[in-house]
């Protein structure tokens, strides 16, 4: 299992050291922040077709408080427990503590934290704080941009708030989880910028992993994605994640598509 994961990670690093990317990752967050005083609104739909079609919609507001601090507020709706209903919410904040800029490149490091609530019953050791579980998460992100290629690594720890009333009897129950990821993004188009109205086309490839530190169960997903940026402010993401290796029974978000649209309002909060 561990060997398989290592092999996949190595292949991934090898394949992507030569190509170039951007850092507006689809399945993870970069260490960079939003511009200060800006607001963005996101609508995301994610779902899977097996064993039957179920999906979740996420409404999200993102705020760049100042150049180093930003936060997201999310609301989750899904039909995972029958009828489509509101299932929870989440608050995510990120603090950028390191920023080394050079022409056409940068290295950034950030710390993040998340608090989540969810009404869903629990029946697996897996933890997903974007809809499925109530709990907290904290971690670090490191992002290196090199002209058209951006690489990013995330390492985090999460723990659920134990809610006996939501536990399904006899099923495994969540406790804590390590999450880690390696992401790469590549700016495909335009080759040469002429103006803000040119669409940007970015290609992403992410490796997303989780390990239960107590029981040792793990999984590793590969997640390719496409991204289109229109007028330098509207972002459209299309991605798919599938499990490459893993032994976590009943895990969340297995073989899942993701579709998202994001609108950016720069300087929306600045008092002129």
């Amino acid at each position, binding site marked *: 299992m561990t060997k398989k994961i290592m092999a996949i990670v190595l292949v991934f690093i090898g394949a992507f050291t030569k190509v170039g990317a951007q850092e507006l990752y689809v399945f993870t967050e970069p260490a960079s922040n939003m511009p200060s*005083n800006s607001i963005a609104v996101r609508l995301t739909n994610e779902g899977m077709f097996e064993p039957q079609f179920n999906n979740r919609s996420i409404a999200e507001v993102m705020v760049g408080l100042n150049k180093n601090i930003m936060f997201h507020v999310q609301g989750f709706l899904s039909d995972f427990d029958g009828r489509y209903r509101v299932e929870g919410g989440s608050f995510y904040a990120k603090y950028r503590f390191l920023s080394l800029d050079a022409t056409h490149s940068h290295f950034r490091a950030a710390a993040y934290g998340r608090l989540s609530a969810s009404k869903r019953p629990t029946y697996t050791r897996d933890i997903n704080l974007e809809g499925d579980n109530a709990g907290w998460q904290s971690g670090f992100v490191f992002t290196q941009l090199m002209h058209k290629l951006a690489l990013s690594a995330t390492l985090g720890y999460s723990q659920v708030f134990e809610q006996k009333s939501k536990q399904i009897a006899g099923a495994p129950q969540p406790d804590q989880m390590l999450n880690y990821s390696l992401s790469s993004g590549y*700016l495909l188009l335009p080759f040469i910028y002429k103006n*803000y109205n040119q669409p940007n086309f970015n290609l992403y490839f992410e490796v997303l992993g989780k390990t239960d530190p107590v029981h040792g169960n793990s999984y590793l997903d590969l997640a390719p994605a496409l991204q289109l*940026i229109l007028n330098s402010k509207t972002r459209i993401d299309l991605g798919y994640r599938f499990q490459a290796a893993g032994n976590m029974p009943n895990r969340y978000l297995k073989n899942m598509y993701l579709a998202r649209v994001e609108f*950016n309002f*720069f300087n929306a909060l600045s008092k002129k």
Partner: protein
Amino acid sequence: MKTTKIFICFSLLFVINKATAQQITTVEMQVTGLTCSMCSQATEKSLRSLSYVSDVSPDLNKNVFVVTFKKGSTVNLDQLNKKVKDAGFSVGKLEANMTFNQVKVDDQGQAIVGSSIYRFDNAKNQVLNGNVKVNVIDKNFISNSAFKQKSAVVKFDSYATGTGVVNGKKVRIYHLSI
């Protein structure tokens, strides 16, 4: 045709004459740490939120922003720098087009224009007149490595902090290179 030429020359003269009323007419900034047009857009919008900025013209490939200011306005270079930082990036180079009117640079390399104090690392005992292109060499206006190199060469005690005591008052001092 000739009349048109004369007219254009005359108008130019007029424009230049007007410009002497202000010190900084345009600024050319190299912004570092960004490569995407969304980032450039954020930077431009951030700069435009300053009341005295009249136009921002970006070169999206080189990440150079030419900022033009409203006539007669007082330009604050530190504020420009902060706006770039607010957007999430840094200034790697800043070249300002400054208009001087018989400004004397003393034997130490210091010039006082109104309430602004400038110290030149490569000019002394001279009188500045007309349009002069200057580079700001203060911290956060050049790359960190360039600042370290400059720190070893620039003699002013005010260089490390960008502030110093002039006529008994602690003031912001911009360090410039011609």
